[in-house]
């Protein structure tokens, strides 16, 4: 009786319709690129019949997972250090590193007016300002750099709260637990409410966001196709729509 049922189950599983010739790639995505990545993944699936499965996190956290054998095949970082490091340490495919986007930093508030961000930061009339963890998230490092350049970091240090990724930093602002915060422009560019200040580029080093094909994905058609797809005009248009720069020199 049990055997029959098992056989029946096995038959059902085997008979389940499988999409023809399609492969799936696992992609680790820096949190700031979440929305853009989803849109690109959808466009990619439509175009190629391949699927990508996205995992989001802080760049540093994702990289640690890569070094510990996480089953990712492509890594979209928020910096230009870790993908290069991945190649150097033997996790990435040589020659596959390229800049897919240049990240832009924004100061954002759900309630206060921060359109003149510099003045708001210098006035410092708020309790909490949220940033991403500068050690693991490049946007957090850029936020610290900006405050340092403006000469307000020492004064604001005691008001800084950290999210583990730029996603949590944004969440702290959005829920009102922090009045304002440094987030990725991509997170708030489509926001209906709130106010923002696009941090001038001369206040922080450009956030070159590099992608790398990991060795685990070298033989996966979906992974290589996704990397190629990122370089197409269609993907670039989506990336630009979220406020990213496209040229590493920009």
């Amino acid at each position, binding site marked *: 009786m049990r055997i029959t049922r098992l056989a029946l189950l096995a038959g059902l599983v085997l008979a389940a319709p499988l999409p023809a010739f399609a492969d799936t790639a696992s992609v680790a995505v820096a949190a700031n690129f979440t929305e853009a990545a989803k849109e690109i993944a959808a466009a990619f699936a439509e175009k190629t019949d391949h699927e990508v499965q996205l995992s989001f996190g802080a760049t*540093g956290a994702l990289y640690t997972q890569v070094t510990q054998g996480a089953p990712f095949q492509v890594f979209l970082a928020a910096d230009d250090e870790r993908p290069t490091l991945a190649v150097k340490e033997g996790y990435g495919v040589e020659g596959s590193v390229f800049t897919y986007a240049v990240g832009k930093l924004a100061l954002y508030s759900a309630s206060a007016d921060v359109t003149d961000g510099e003045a708001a930061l210098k006035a410092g009339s708020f*309790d909490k300002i949220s940033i991403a*963890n500068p*050690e693991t998230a490049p946007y957090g490092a850029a936020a610290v750099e900006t405050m340092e350049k403006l000469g307000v970091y020492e004064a604001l240090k005691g008001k800084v*709260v950290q999210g*583990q990724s730029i996603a949590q930093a944004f969440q702290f602002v959005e829920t*009102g*637990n922090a009045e304002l915060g440094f987030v990725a422009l991509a997170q708030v560019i489509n926001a209906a409410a709130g106010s923002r200040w696009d941090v001038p580029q001369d206040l922080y080093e450009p956030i070159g966001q590099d992608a790398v094909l990991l060795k685990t994905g070298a033989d996966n058609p979906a992974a290589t196709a996704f990397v190629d797809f990122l370089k197409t005009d269609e993907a670039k248009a989506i990336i630009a729509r979220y406020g990213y720069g496209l040229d590493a020199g920009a």
Partner: protein
Amino acid sequence: MDFDGEIGGAILLTLQLATVTTLLLLLVGIPLGWWLARTKSRAKEVVGTLVALPLVLPPTVLGFYLLVALGPDGLGGLFGVRTFAFTFEGLVFGSVVFSLPFAVQPIRDAFEAAGERPFEVAATLRASPLDAFLSVGLPLARPGILTGAVLGFAHTVGEFGVVLMIGGNIPGETKVLSIAIFDFVETLRWREAHILSAGMLVFAFAVILTVSVIDRRARRARAGA
């Protein structure tokens, strides 16, 4: 040890958090455990269930609700400080909720194990209920209270998910041990992660051993009595 350093600071903060939390847990847990053990009220099971909820709920659920409850639309707004998240006080509040079942359950068990008899005797001797609680209940339940305190303390030290969601990673304020270890791992500083993790391992072993010893002694004492 250097209590200003990254590691020392996290250890000190964690000990402070666990100590304050444990004191509050006893303050709330002893009367609550007493009531749960002795009441005949119909609310008993409901209250007991509420207390036990953190055993089952994912820390993310607690963290999420706490973030809202402590924020501008909750307690923070009520007290005009915007939010209690990202503060030591906020963590204490969260820790008390999170560790409540670990403190209350052994205390309740101890009061229940004491049975009706000693209190009937106390009543016969004209002890007021408060007097019976203080001079009969508390001494009888001492091993359970001790176990509750140790478990509450240890569970607060071991807290991670809730702090990750409402802490904001502020050194000296909310960056506790477990968060520091997380950060060390994520930034590939594994030497520090190893030191702290090994320390936690020894600590956890000592705690569980202590609880077993307390438990055995209490049982032996009861069997001998």
